[in-house]
């Protein structure tokens, strides 16, 4: 009598030769695997812990400068190179992979205050406190070769002397014009020894200038009269301006959403603005405890890196009020400039202790070529961690960062101060006529006047 029962032949389920792959059979019936949610939760916990174990963000330091680094520039056409300028006038081109100097551009007599590269990567523009603007031709072949024997110094192509010291420079996209900030905003051309146009709004020095990546004629500047102004080169006059409570040290446009820009301010916050609406900030990013010196966006437009006077670097998501990541070392002193690498994986910081430091933007990322299985595993860990990251145990692990004592204490103090201000405001409201005290949101509070 024939009876139908399960019969498995070993051939299908075992491998024939030792070099064959083992076959994997799947059955997604939930009744053969129990307590899936709890297993997922445990896996999320393990993934968060592993993340912390593998978090080694510091890649290396690039030494060579003999004075503090004041500015950096990245070449949009070559991912590996980065330019840095220091307070004693030395400009160097670094190769990030080997972390060595590949080119030197000597010539500036005083501090180099601004560096920028033209969009095709051929011309490096630098400006400094010696009131000169120098144009250098970038040696493309040097970036490919790595021999130390070749002569690394370069001669400047042009040197333009002007009337006042310069504070910053930025190059227009897809053009041969660049803007400098000093006593006012000057628009230069590569081939002219005097600026084509000059703008002046108020009498204070312009501290930083940035061209918009999407709309090449729009320029944002910040000045030491605590204002941020927008200029349109086609119109020949400044467009709009607003004044804040404290000075903005640096501005960066969001490369993916060029209507938004973020300003790094002296009051240790960063403010994101929509350039069409200057009355209020779209987001306030608060976590630094001292003045934010520089800011740069990631090429994805989803996060930005800030370097601050409190010796730390923080990475913020573009729309969140608090940091995602903080990097600090005992050896790194005041950070004056930061740059996000053009592939979005690294962050470079230049600081007071004459070193450039290379950091990973995702601290526990595995560098190098990943096998597809490894890739899948990393993706799974990310996904399962994100699913449960709001739960208290996992949130604690994910959020935890070791802070240096001064930062920790300063942060605590700031929080206490804010808390006491808030309580006082609440009590004032509670003891006055309802509606008589109107509290402005933080995004508006910091803006004094819009012109």
């Amino acid at each position, binding site marked *: 009598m024939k009876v139908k029962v399960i019969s498995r032949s070993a051939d299908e389920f075992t491998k024939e030769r030792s070099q064959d792959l083992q076959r994997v059979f799947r*059955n997604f019936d*939930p*009744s053969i695997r129990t*307590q899936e949610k709890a*297993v997922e939760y445990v896996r999320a916990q393990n993934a968060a812990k592993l993340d912390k174990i593998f978090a080694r963000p510091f890649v290396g330091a690039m030494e060579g400068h003999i004075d503090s680094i004041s500015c950096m520039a990245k070449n949009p056409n070559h991912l590996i190179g980065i330019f840095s300028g220091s307070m004693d006038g030395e400009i160097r081109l670094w190769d990030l992979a080997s972390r060595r100097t590949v080119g030197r551009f000597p010539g500036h007599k005083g501090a180099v205050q601004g560096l920028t590269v033209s969009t095709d990567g051929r011309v490096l523009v630098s400006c400094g406190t010696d009131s000169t603007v120098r144009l250098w031709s970038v040696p493309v072949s040097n970036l490919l070769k790595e021999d130390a024997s070749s002569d690394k110094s370069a001669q400047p192509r042009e040197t333009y002397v002007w009337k006042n010291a310069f504070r910053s420079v930025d190059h227009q996209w897809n053009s041969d014009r660049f803007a400098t900030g000093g006593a006012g905003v000057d628009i230069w051309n590569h081939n002219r020894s005097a600026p084509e146009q000059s703008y002046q709004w108020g009498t204070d020095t312009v501290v930083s200038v940035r061209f918009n990546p999407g709309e090449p004629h729009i320029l944002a500047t910040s000045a030491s009269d605590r204002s941020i102004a927008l200029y349109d080169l086609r119109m020949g006059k400044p467009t709009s301006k607003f004044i804040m409570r404290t000075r903005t040290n640096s501005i960066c446009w969001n490369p993916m959403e060029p209507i938004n820009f973020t300003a790094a301010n002296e009051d240790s916050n960063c403010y994101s603005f929509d350039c069409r609406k200057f009355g209020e900030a779209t987001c306030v990013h608060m976590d630094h405890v001292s003045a934010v010196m520089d800011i740069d966006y990631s090429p994805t437009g989803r996060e930005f890196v800030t370097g601050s006077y409190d010796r730390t670097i923080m990475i913020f998501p573009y729309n969140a009020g608090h940091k995602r990541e903080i990097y600090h070392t005992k050896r790194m002193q005041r950070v004056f400039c930061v740059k996000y690498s053009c592939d979005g994986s690294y962050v470079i910081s230049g600081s007071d202790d004459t070193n450039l430091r290379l950091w990973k933007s995702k601290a526990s990322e595995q560098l190098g070529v990943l096998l597809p299985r490894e890739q899948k595993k990393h993706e799974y860990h990310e996904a399962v961690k994100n699913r449960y990251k709001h739960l208290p145990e996992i949130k604690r692990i994910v959020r935890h960062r070791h802070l240096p004592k001064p930062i920790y204490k300063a942060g605590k103090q700031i929080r206490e101060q804010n808390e006491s201000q808030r309580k006082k405001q609440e009590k004032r409201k509670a003891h006055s006529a309802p509606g008589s005290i109107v509290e402005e949101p933080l995004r508006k509070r910091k803006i004094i006047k819009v012109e």
Partner: protein
Amino acid sequence: MLSTFSVSRILFPNIQSLGILTPKLLNLGPYTLDFTSSGRHMAVGGRKGHLAIVDMKTMGLIKEFQVRETVRDVVFLHNDLFFAAAQKSMANILMTGRYPYIYNRDGTELHCLKEHGAVLRLQFLKNHFLLASINNFGQLHYQDVTMGEMVGSYRTGIGRTDAMQVNPYNGVVALGQSLGTVSMWKPTSSAPLLRLLCHKGPVSAIAFHPNGHLMATAGKERKIKLWDLRKLGDEPLQTLPGNAKTLDFSQKGLLACQLGNGSSVQILRDLDGNQTYKTYMNHGMVKGFQIEKLLFRPYEDVLGIGHSMGWSSILIPGAGEPNFDTLVANPFETSKQRRESEVHSLLDKLPAETIMLDPAKIGTLKPERKKEKPTKQEKVAGIEAAVEVVKAIKLKKKTKGRSKPSKRTIKKKELIAKAKSPFLAQEMKEEEQVARKKQKTIEYVETPTSLLRFVRKKATA
């Protein structure tokens, strides 16, 4: 149609090597058995001390040995390398050791778990790596077998019980009591999660459906009842006649139980999926064989029967899950795969706190609890404590006639009144709120029409 292997075919170990001359024991007691989760290996324990591991694919004996003690229960740990046996020493009257022992695949005794006491039943919780045991005093012990930590030991208050089963869906242990209740336990609380009155007599066996919704209990009053665990009520889903010492659900939901007086097996099945079980198959064995344990083999259409003369396995079409998942349980595991899966399952080991009746609650947020108001006693205690503190303050002694006793007492009274005032203010506020609420409710009471002429209208400003 049947494939029966009886124990007498397997060669006994050389008992002479133990130094004792004993006659060949054909009758080594009723046998209990356990399968690994992939169904590949089986551990067999005879009551008279015969322990063996059998590879079910090749029907080859891996190891068998005699422990010369009464063995009450055998259970595999996370894979076929380790199994635990609940033993009682009968050799020496002075040394009454009744402990579970953990053995290796080679028969080496690895651990003697003394804290568990005289264990009657053992169960292994696979996801949590917990070995649960119930002993003859009714104490329930949970031990973590990875590090050997005793996670919980509780006096259940049940008395001696033989019925113990783990619900694979949520990891709770169900114990059947001689009064007819089934209680469910978790390792982090000393009180049971749930108590169900199931039978009029003692509960003799419990079994859980793998999807966690059905529970079958057998009582000594010859009834088998099926309960729906999601909707626990007074009435079972179904009551069947049967005198069962052991019950088991297969992966596909077939229920195996005893029929009559112990030597025939009945298999029940719900055809249409609406949880009404009807007879599917009956199997009668040689009369006189007393069935000790029924256990379905995972991923095969086989039912293993442990009885007084050995163990048998019979074919039941439709019992097992035909498609296995390699990452969950692989019957064709190589040693490399076994090692890897051991490490992965250790990494995914669930903490003992995740055992709860509804496992879907993990990952959800707890609903916010409203702040509880302090009771009257607490309020009074609070006031008294504040007053005590104030009384202990020593007032400064003033000179030039300013510290007269009358002034001092007045000052003290003021301080006490000041200390009491916040509590009294709080009380007044609460009373005011209550009064306001009462007023609101009173306003809506309608007066009957005949009395309307006497209602005084409020003066409207």
